[in-house]
């Protein structure tokens, strides 16, 4: 089923006409309602009237994550507070999270776009979807939730964790669709295997997985173990949340909803557009958002765009699975982690040196984060319990800043390599 055939299968000139009209409205909106955008445009002598054709988009300045942080919490909002009906946030690098607000119309759009994506995977109102993304400030849980309801499916709002209960509900309620991070899907699959749950008790047909990098090999593994079709879903809270793009049954790239977003690919070093079909950093402009429209937002995700018509019949552009990042952000169990967050936690504590080494591994199917950190000479103790307490304190501080558990290992002073250049702080052993 194609949810919105008119938009999803429109020819290029129709899409571009819609985009231009909506882009103009958006530029007008941010120019008059968001002081920081107006200032940026005035600095380069640009007014909304200068946006006459779609290619004028490249005249507009980029937006980066730091811009949202500088305006913390609501500085980038372009709708009055009385129109904001939902607020989400994602973890910040050094203290402040990035905050996004949605008007009622934004939430309706979000739900429709997620429903479109679900329809792309073959889901319909006869399906029961178990949502094992986290519910809360993170957009994953609620984003999929309202999309599922919009589609008319039966939604089970499980949230993440408690695998045993996930499997019980999955079998008892006959869930046909699972939505979670790909690594958690694998974990669920392995637990099902271990518990020797008979195949006929699992009714799953479709998996909608995202929020972390995964590979084709992982997809094959999940599909084989769970006997499902696994689809990739793309999104980021700054732009909307999950559902900015979603794979169709062709499993050949994620369709981006171009009537709501204009994607570009740039070279992250030169910031110039790359040649069509080349890999680079994905930049997205939102053209229907009211709460917090963003112009040329640098996602930092590296990918390629394909404009050819898809075998599913949709004409919406397809983005390839993300290849990596153009910054140092790590995605651990679906949570964004910046090495600078770890540094700030260590700097705030007097007992540790800001010399550390972060080791990311995939143990079994789950990512694990190990932090090696130097103990300062004067805080060294002859008693095991004091050192264990120090470890626990560092781990607790990291957990409260990062939102995920970190395995802390204390090491001797001056044992972590010092380099004169950019220090090697992260060793990512995951084979992605």
């Amino acid at each position: 089923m194609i949810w919105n055939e008119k938009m999803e299968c429109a020819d290029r000139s129709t899409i571009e006409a819609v985009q231009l009209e909506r882009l103009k409205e958006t530029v007008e909106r941010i120019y008059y309602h968001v002081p920081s955008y107006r200032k940026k445009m005035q600095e380069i002598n640009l007014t909304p009237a200068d946006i006459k054709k779609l290619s004028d988009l490249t005249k507009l300045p980029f937006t980066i994550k730091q811009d949202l942080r500088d305006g913390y919490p609501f500085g980038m909002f372009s709708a009055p507070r009385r129109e904001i009906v939902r607020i989400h946030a994602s973890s910040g690098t050094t203290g402040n999270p990035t905050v996004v607000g949605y008007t009622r119309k934004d939430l309706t759009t979000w739900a429709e776009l997620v429903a479109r994506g679900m329809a792309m995977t073959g889901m319909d109102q006869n399906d029961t979807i178990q949502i094992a993304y986290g519910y809360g400030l993170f957009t994953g849980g609620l984003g999929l939730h309202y999309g599922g309801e919009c589609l008319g499916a039966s939604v089970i709002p499980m949230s993440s964790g408690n695998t045993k209960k996930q499997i019980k509900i999955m079998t008892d309620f006959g869930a046909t669709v699972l939505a979670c991070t790909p690594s958690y899907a694998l974990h669920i699959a392995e637990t099902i295997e271990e518990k020797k749950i008979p195949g006929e008790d699992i009714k799953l047909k479709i998996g909608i997985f995202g929020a972390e990098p995964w590979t084709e090999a992982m997809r094959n593994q999940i599909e084989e173990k769970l006997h499902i079709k696994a689809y990739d879903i793309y999104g980021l809270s700054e732009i909307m949340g999950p559902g900015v793009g979603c794979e169709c049954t062709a499993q050949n790239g994620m369709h981006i909803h171009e009537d709501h977003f204009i994607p570009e690919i740039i070279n992250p070093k030169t910031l110039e557009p790359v040649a069509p079909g080349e890999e680079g950093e994905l930049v997205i402009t939102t053209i229907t958002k009211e709460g917090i429209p963003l112009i040329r937002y640098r996602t930092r995700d590296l990918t390629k765009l394909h404009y050819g018509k898809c075998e599913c019949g949709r004409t919406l552009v397809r983005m390839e699975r993300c290849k990596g990042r153009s910054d140092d952000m790590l995605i651990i169990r679906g949570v964004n982690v910046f090495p600078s967050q770890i540094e700030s936690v260590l700097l705030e504590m007097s007992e540790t040196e800001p010399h550390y080494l972060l080791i990311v591994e995939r143990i079994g199917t789950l990512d694990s984060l190990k932090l090696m950190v130097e103990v300062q000479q004067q805080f060294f103790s002859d008693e095991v319990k004091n050192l264990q307490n120090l470890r626990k304190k560092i781990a607790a501080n990291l957990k409260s800043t990062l939102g995920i558990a970190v395995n802390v290992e204390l090491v001797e002073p001056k044992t972590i390599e010092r380099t004169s250049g950019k220090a090697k702080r992260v060793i990512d052993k995951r084979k992605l």
Partner: protein
Amino acid sequence: MIIKQLSVFLENKTGRLNEVTDCLGAADINLTALSIADTSEFGILRMIVSDPDKALKILKNAGFAVSLTEVVCLQSPNTPGSLAKALDILSGEGVFIEYLYAFSNGNNAANVVLKPGNIQKCITILQKNKMKLLKEDDLYQL
């Protein structure tokens, strides 16, 4: 009656202990007693040596996380029940023991290094009960 113990933080990696003993051997420092507290992530080496201040300096310069810790050394007869007697006295008076290790130097006596929660109280109680505590000089030369 307070004894200086050398405590060294050791990462769990092969050869790290040798490096400590090599440093001390080269500086002509003798080890009287030693014990290691091991955890799954790291170890703490505790030693009684012939010249703790010099050893501290040497190990610090060699880049170890090292400190001096105050402990007491009880000398008890090398006979069944004598350690139990001393520990009964201490626990009866509410003295908590963080850790202890023992060694015998061949004579008819056993030496027990104790790290009590309250070192002054521990010394007073043991002396009041006529227990023999070794002095720094006695111990470092054993």
